[in-house]
């Protein structure tokens, strides 16, 4: 069954009635310890979403393209990390893309009604016909995900394959992954699956293995199993405690209300003053005095 407006729980710069029935929350689980960096997911994403990124340049890294872009919605990020404890050089690979936050900063920042929506299954989607290209979502996102297209000046990011999910399919990347490092299901199932993977990793010496489902953004619908969950930042700067920036909260919170109130008060003060004091008019005496002054000059 397709996702419809009846499944919305949030809509940017507008409100929606609470849905009559909530869909089960879904999640994509990415197990970085199983990833071999083949980029099948990256290709599958381009294929399914009909994206056409330009051929990049090799700058001596497997990471290609170098960053997310309006037509690269998921990107394998490669990091070489010296493990200070073991002395090993570890090759860390993380599939970057939208985290589908429960508390999405992009949606909070968006000024265009209905340009960003959140479904009750947890998917955060950009609705391009409502997007005005202001770039506020870029400022709102704690993960640096949305990108504005130079072609149509609209924001793009991973949709969690909302079109596939609403038809009972998993995302294209999960389908393509040859090692099942990417799996998809209900959030409950994925957490249970992660528990097993974490127990396995711990039994093999990764004492700090754990799940990345950051509480600061209310949890996410894309989660990672990390073998060094105590230091997510080593995985190409995955934030340790992501949350919507306090500056964004202030901008989109108190400022909006106080701003409108202050402008309204200024206008009201003018009206009241005019009613109480009346117009400040030039009198006949003023004109007569001015005439006298001119005669003297």
């Amino acid at each position, binding site marked *: 069954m397709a996702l419809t407006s009846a499944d919305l729980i949030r809509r940017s710069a507008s409100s929606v009635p609470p849905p009559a029935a909530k869909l089960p929350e879904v999640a994509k689980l990415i197990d970085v310890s199983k990833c071999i960096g083949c980029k099948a997911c990256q290709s599958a994403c381009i294929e399914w979403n009909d994206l056409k990124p330009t051929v990049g340049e090799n700058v001596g890294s497997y990471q290609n393209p170098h960053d997310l872009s309006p037509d690269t919605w998921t990107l394998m990020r490669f990091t070489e990390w010296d493990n200070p404890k073991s002395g090993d050089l570890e090759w860390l690979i993380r599939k970057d893309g939208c985290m589908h936050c429960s508390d999405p900063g992009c949606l909070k920042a968006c000024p*265009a009604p209905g340009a960003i929506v959140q479904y009750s299954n947890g998917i955060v989607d950009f609705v391009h016909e409502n997007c*005005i290209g202001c*770039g506020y979502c870029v400022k709102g996102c704690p993960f640096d995900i949305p990108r504005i297209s130079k072609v149509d*000046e609209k924001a793009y990011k991973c949709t969690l394959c909302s079109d596939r999910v609403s038809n009972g399919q998993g995302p294209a990347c999960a389908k393509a992954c040859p090692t099942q490092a990417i799996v998809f299901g209900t959030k409950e199932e994925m957490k249970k699956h992660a528990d097993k993977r974490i127990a396995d990793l711990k039994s093999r010496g990764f004492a700090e293995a754990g799940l990345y489902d950051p509480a600061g953004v209310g949890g996410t619908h894309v989660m990672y199993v990390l073998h060094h969950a105590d230091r997510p930042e080593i995985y190409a700067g995955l934030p340790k405690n992501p949350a919507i920036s306090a*500056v964004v909260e202030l901008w989109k919170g108190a400022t909006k209300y106080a701003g409108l109130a202050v402008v309204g008060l200024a206008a009201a003060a*003018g009206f009241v003053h005019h009613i109480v004091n009346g117009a400040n008019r030039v009198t*006949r005496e003023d004109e*007569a005095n*001015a*005439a006298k002054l001119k005669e003297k000059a």
Partner: protein
Amino acid sequence: MSNADPTPEASYRVTRYTTAARLNHLVTAGSLVLLAVSGMALFHPSLFFLTGLFGGGAMAREIHPWIGVVLFFGFFGLFFRFWRANLPERGDGEWLRNGGAVLGGHEEKLTEIGRYNAGQKLVFWSMSLLIVVLIVSGLTIWDEYFAAWTSIPTKRIAVLVHAVAAIVAICVWIIHLYAAIWVRGTMDAMTKGSVTGGWAWRHHRRWLRETIGGKSAG
């Protein structure tokens, strides 16, 4: 405000602004209003419908910073025309301390005022400062061309500063506009370029003395 006659005949008229200064003001005021309207449309969802005046959300977003560029040049012109006349002077403190009398319409109790009173000077200098802040913060969030110039944390601060400065600027503009409406005859300065002798006597007596004593208008 004792006599009943609302608009006594002008004894004579005094030039207050040149045509060039009035055109300069018109362009600046027009762009400020368009900026306020297109900006407020993005500021609060309840005002988003205002983007319709510009041909939709994407157009309002696109055009706003360009109007900002017009405002910049317009204000630059006004600033260099008028800054000297807005330098603080002796009577300003007295005028500000007697805000109650001024608001009550009893300026006659105060020392004679020159070309601008302290309130007008405050409008001038606060707008100058606010417009500089709006331009700097506006360029920082003009992602269509300058996205790569600054980091995301910097842009977050810039957009907050831009919104707050815009609100303050709009309030200053409301005060400026209200003063021009309340003090009857003031609009003439912009619409005709001249004011009546009585208006000048009442509100800017020292300026009137200086002007008819031979000094030229700005």
